[in-house]
C-alpha cells in the first residue's frame, strides 16, 4: 500500500474522531423565563440492579466453572476453552464490567471480617469461595476459561516470549505481597486497592483515569508477547488459586494415557508451566549441602517474619494516608493547608471546612483508622516475611517427577499442551496408533536407559 493511499484511508477512518462530539451541552443556568410554562422534569435516580441478577451472576459463574472443569479434565478441548473464554470475556468483562469478580472479592471478605457494620454480600462471598472450592478439585479451572482478565490476556497472546523459569519462580511472591496489601487496606477500610489498580477494569468499562488507562495499555501490549503477565506476576486471587490447585484432587495431565517422554510437549506451554522429569538423587551424601541450606532457611523463617513485621509496623503512617478520613485529618492538621475561600470553594477547601466543623469526629475516626494500621502493619510485614521465607524454603526442595507434567500451581489449565502429546493426537484421531507405536518403543527404551544409569 502506498503511503498516500494509507494517508487517505487513515484520514477517512479517523475523521469522525474530530466530529465525534457535536455541541450537545445546554446552558446549565439558563436565564429564568416565565412564558412557556415549561416544567423542569423531576430528577430521577435509576433503580439499582435487581438482586435476582446477582444470583444469575453466581449461577453463570458456577456453570462456567463446571463447564471449564469438564473441558479441561474430561473433554480435554482447547477449542472449547477458547469459546468459554470468549463467553466469559463478554459476560463477566464487557457486560458485567468486571464487577463483580473474584479477584477483588478477598477485599470484601477482609472488610466484612474486620468491620462488623458491613455485611458481606452473599454474591461477593460466593464469588470468593466458589472458584477456590473448584481449585481444590480441578485446579485453576477459573483461570482457564472463566476469568475475564485471564481470557483477555490469553486470547490476545500472539507470539509468546519465554520468561526464564528462575525469574518466574522468583517473582511468584509478588502476587502474595499484593494480596497482603489488598487485605490490609480493605480490613482497615482504606479502600479496595486491588480494584483501584486493576488494569483491565478500565478496558471493560472503556473509561478510567489517565494513569490506569496507560497501565491497561501497557498490560495489553505486554500480553501480546508474554503469556498472561497479570495472572503470573500480579494477580492476588491467582495466588490463592495456586495454593488450592497444589492440593487439587484432579490435576491437568498433558498426556491422556502415559508419558512416552518424547519431549514434544516441552515447549508447548506459553506460561512455562511444564516441568521435565526429575529422578531422585541416588547418593544421599550429595544432598548434604541442600539439606543444610534447607535447615538454615527453616531457622531463618521466624527471623524473616519478625523483621518483616517490624518493617510493616513502620508503614502505618504512610499507608493509612490512603484512607480518606486520615488524609483529611492530616491535611487539616497541616499548618500549610490551603485557606478556605468562601463562595467559590474547591473540593479540598470544602473538605477542610467540613473538618473544621467536625474536627473531633474526624480526628477520632482518623486516629482509630491509624490504630488499625498500627496493628495491620505488623501483620502485613509478617506476611511478607512469611511469603519470602516459604518461597526460599520451597525453592530449596525438589520434587521428583517421572513424566513431563504441568506444575500444579503454575498451570492455568489452558489446554494448549494437549495436542502436543502424540498420545492425545491418537486419542482424538489425528494420529493412527501405528504411527505412535514408535514412541512407545522409545518410552520402553528410555526406561531401560534410566534404570541402567541408576
Amino acid at each position, binding site marked *: 500500500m502506498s503511503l498516500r493511499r494509507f494517508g487517505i484511508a487513515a484520514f477517512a477512518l479517523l475523521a469522525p474522531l474530530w466530529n*465525534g462530539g457535536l455541541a450537545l451541552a445546554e*446552558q*446549565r443556568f439558563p436565564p429564568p423565563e416565565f412564558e412557556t410554562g415549561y416544567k423542569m422534569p423531576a430528577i430521577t435516580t435509576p433503580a439499582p440492579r435487581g438482586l435476582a441478577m446477582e444470583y444469575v451472576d453466581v449461577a453463570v459463574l458456577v456453570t462456567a466453572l463446571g463447564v471449564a472443569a469438564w473441558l479441561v479434565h474430561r473433554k480435554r478441548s482447547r477449542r472449547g476453552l477458547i469459546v468459554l473464554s470468549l463467553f466469559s470475556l463478554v459476560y463477566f468483562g464487557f457486560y458485567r464490567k468486571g464487577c463483580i469478580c473474584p479477584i477483588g472479592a478477598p477485599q470484601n471478605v477482609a472488610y466484612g471480617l474486620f468491620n462488623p457494620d458491613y455485611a458481606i454480600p452473599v454474591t461477593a462471598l460466593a464469588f470468593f469461595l466458589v472458584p477456590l472450592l473448584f481449585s481444590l478439585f480441578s485446579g485453576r479451572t477459573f483461570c482457564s476459561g472463566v476469568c475475564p482478565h485471564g481470557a483477555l490476556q490469553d486470547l490476545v497472546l500472539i507470539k509468546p516470549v519465554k520468561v526464564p523459569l*528462575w525469574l518466574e519462580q522468583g517473582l511468584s511472591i509478588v502476587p502474595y505481597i499484593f494480596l497482603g496489601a489488598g487485605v490490609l487496606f480493605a480490613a482497615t477500610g482504606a479502600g479496595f486497592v486491588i480494584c483501584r489498580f486493576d488494569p483491565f477494569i478500565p478496558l471493560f468499562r472503556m473509561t478510567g483515569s*489517565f494513569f490506569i488507562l496507560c497501565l491497561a495499555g501497557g498490560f495489553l501490549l505486554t500480553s*501480546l508477547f508474554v503469556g498472561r503477565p497479570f495472572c503470573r506476576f500480579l494477580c492476588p486471587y491467582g495466588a490463592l488459586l495456586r495454593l488450592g490447585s497444589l492440593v487439587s484432587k484432579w490435576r491437568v495431565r498433558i498426556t491422556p494415557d502415559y508419558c512416552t517422554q518424547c519431549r514434544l510437549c516441552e515447549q508447548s506451554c506459553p506460561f512455562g508451566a511444564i516441568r521435565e522429569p526429575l529422578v531422585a538423587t541416588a547418593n544421599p551424601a550429595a544432598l548434604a549441602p541442600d539439606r543444610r541450606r534447607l535447615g538454615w532457611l527453616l531457622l531463618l523463617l521466624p527471623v524473616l517474619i519478625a523483621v518483616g513485621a517490624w518493617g510493616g509496623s513502620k508503614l502505618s503512617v504512610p499507608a493509612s494516608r490512603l484512607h480518606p478520613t486520615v488524609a483529611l485529618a492530616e491535611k487539616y492538621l497541616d499548618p500549610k493547608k490551603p485557606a478556605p475561600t468562601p463562595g467559590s470553594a474547591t473540593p479540598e477547601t470544602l473538605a477542610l471546612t467540613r473538618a473544621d*466543623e467536625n474536627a473531633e469526629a474526624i480526628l477520632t475516626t482518623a486516629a482509630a483508622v491509624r490504630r488499625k494500621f498500627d496493628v495491620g502493619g505488623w501483620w502485613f510485614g509478617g506476611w511478607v516475611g512469611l511469603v519470602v521465607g516459604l518461597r526460599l524454603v520451597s525453592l530449596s526442595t*525438589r520434587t521428583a517427577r517421572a513424566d513431563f507434567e504441568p506444575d500444579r500451581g503454575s498451570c492455568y489449565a489452558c489446554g494448549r499442551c494437549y495436542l502436543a502429546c502424540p498420545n492425545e493426537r491418537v486419542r482424538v484421531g489425528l494420529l493412527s496408533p501405528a504411527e505412535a507405536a514408535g514412541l512407545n518403543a522409545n518410552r520402553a527404551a528410555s526406561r531401560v536407559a534410566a534404570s541402567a544409569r541408576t
Partner: protein
Amino acid sequence: MTAPTVSSPPPPAADPTALRALRQTVLVIAALCGLAVLLLLVQHLRSQADDPLKSPQLLALKQQLLAEPKNEALKQQIRLLDLDLRRSHVRDVAFNAFGAWFVLVGVVVLVFAAKGIARFRVVLPSPHASPDAAERVAVTALRARRVTVGVAAITGVAFLVLALPAKTRLPSSPAGVDKVLAKLRGEGEDAPPLPSPAEFAANWPRFLGPSGAAFVTNAAFPLAFNLASGEGVLWRTPVPAPGFNSPLIWSNRVFLSGGDATNRSVFAFDLTTGTQVWQRAVANVPGSPAKPPEVPDSTGFAASTMATDGRRVFAMFANGDLATFNLDGSPVWSKNLGVPKNQYGFATSLAIWQGRLLLQYDQGEPENNLSKLIAFDGATGRVIWQKPRPVGQSWATPVVYEVAGKPQIATLAGELVIAYSVADGNELWRAQMLSGEITPSPIFAGGLVVAISPSDQLFAIKPDGAGDVTKSHVVWKTDENVPDVTSPVSNGELVFAVTSSGTVTCFDLKDGKKLWEHECELEVSSSPAIAGDRVYVFGTKGGMAVLAAAREARELAKADLAEGVLASPAFARGVMVVRTVKTLFCVADKGGPVLEAKRP
C-alpha cells in the same frame, strides 16, 4: 537416549499472497491504532484546561460575582463561559468514547491478523536429549532464590523509603487526639490561662461591657469635664479611621477598629497616655472579596464593636472579614465569612465567652436560610459549632450570661428572641416578642434578659425556660417610651432606656414599672452606660448628659463636647473612654487609670 521422532501434521504451507495481505493488515491497523492512541493522548492533555469544574477563568469570574452579586453582564459572561466549557467537555467525552471503540475494534482485528501470521510460522518442536535435568533444576532454583531475595530487598527498601520520611501530626491514641483537640481549642498545656472572671469584670472587653448590661460599679473619674479645654480629660487623640464601633478597654490598652471600602484596621492605644501603640491593617484575609460590597455610609465598614478574651482581640468588618490579633498586635488568624447580605451593612458586635468568640451572623431574609450563630475557637479560628437561625438580617448584638452555672447566649432577630447553649449551640428557648428592624441589643441584669422590640415594647424574660417561653417566662413588658436604636442598660435594680429624641426613662427591673422620665434634649443613637450611680448619655451632635442612676430623676451634669458621639462609652479601671466621630478621649482624675502591676 536418542531423540524420539514422531510424524506430526505439517504447518499450513505459507501462501505468499495471504501472508503479505495479513502483514499489511497488521501494519495498517497497528499504525491506525497508534495514531488513534496518539490523538487520544493529545486530546487528553489539551482537555485539561477545559474542565468545567476547574477552569481558572470560570473560578475567577465566580469570585468576582461574589463581590458584584448584581452584575448582570458578569452573570451572562459566566453562563456563556460555562456553556462553552461544557460543550467542549461533552465533545471531549464523545471523542474519547469513539477513540476507545476505534482502538478496541482495531486491537481485535490486529490480534486476529497477527494470529493468522503466527499460524504460518509455527516452528515444529525438535526435541533433543537433555540429560542434566538435576543440574538445571539446581541452577534454576539458585537463581530463583536470588530473585526472591532481590524482590524481598526491593520491598524492604520500599518500606524504608515510605516509612522514614513519614511525619505525622495525627496521633493514634485517644489521649493523643484529646491533646490535639485541646490544642486546637487553645487549651493546650502551653496556652496561657484565660483571665479570671474578676479580671474580666475589671475591664471593658465587649460591647456593653463585661456584664453585658453596660454597668460598672466604679465611677472614680470627675463628673465634670471639658473636651475643648481639656479640663478633667486625661488625654485625647484623633480617631485614625472612621467607624461606629465602641472602644474596648483591656489592661492598659484601648482597642478600636476603623476603615472604609479600601482599608480596614485595628488600633491599640495606651490607656494612660492615649498614644497609639500599634495599628494593624486587616489585609490579605483569605477569601476576602477583591471588590468590597456596597455599604451605606450610615453604617460603614466598621460598625461592629470588637471583643477581647483577654489574650487576643477580635474585629469584624462589613465585608465579612474577621481578624484576630494578640494584645501586642501580632496577627493570630483571619478569615472571610463571605460578604454578609445586609441591606444596611453588617453592624452586629462580637460576643465572647471564655476562649470562644461568638458571632451572630444574620443575613438576607428568613427563607434564604443564610443566618447562623457561630462559635469560633478564639485561639485558632476553628469553628467549634455553628447553628442555622430561622431569621433574616439583624443588627443587635447577642448577650452571654450564666443560668444555674451554664452559659447561654440570647439573640434577637426577626420576631424571635432565641437563647442557645454556649457549650454546644443547641437552642434552649425562644420567645416571639419582636417586630421591625432589630437594632437594640439585649442585656442581662438581675437574672432577667431585658430586650427591646424597636418603638414597640420593652420586656424582660426569665431565661430558665425551655422551648417556646412566650407565654410562660415573660416577666413583664411595657410600651412606654420604647427606643428604636439604643439598647437598654441596667444596674441590676433599674433599667434605663433612651429614645432617639433623648428621652431617658427609668423602669423598675423587677416589674417593669416606669419610675420616671427625663428629657435630655439630645439626639441620641448610641447606647447609654452606667458607671456607679451615674447614667451617661451622649448625643449625636456633641451634647452629653449625666443622670443619677436612682429611683428619682436627677440630672447631675450636662456638657457640650462639640463633637458628636455615635459609639457607647467604655468604663474600666476608674476611667471613661469615649469615641467621638473625630476623637478618642479619656476622662480620669489626676491619678489616671488604676492598672495592675503586670502590663501586656
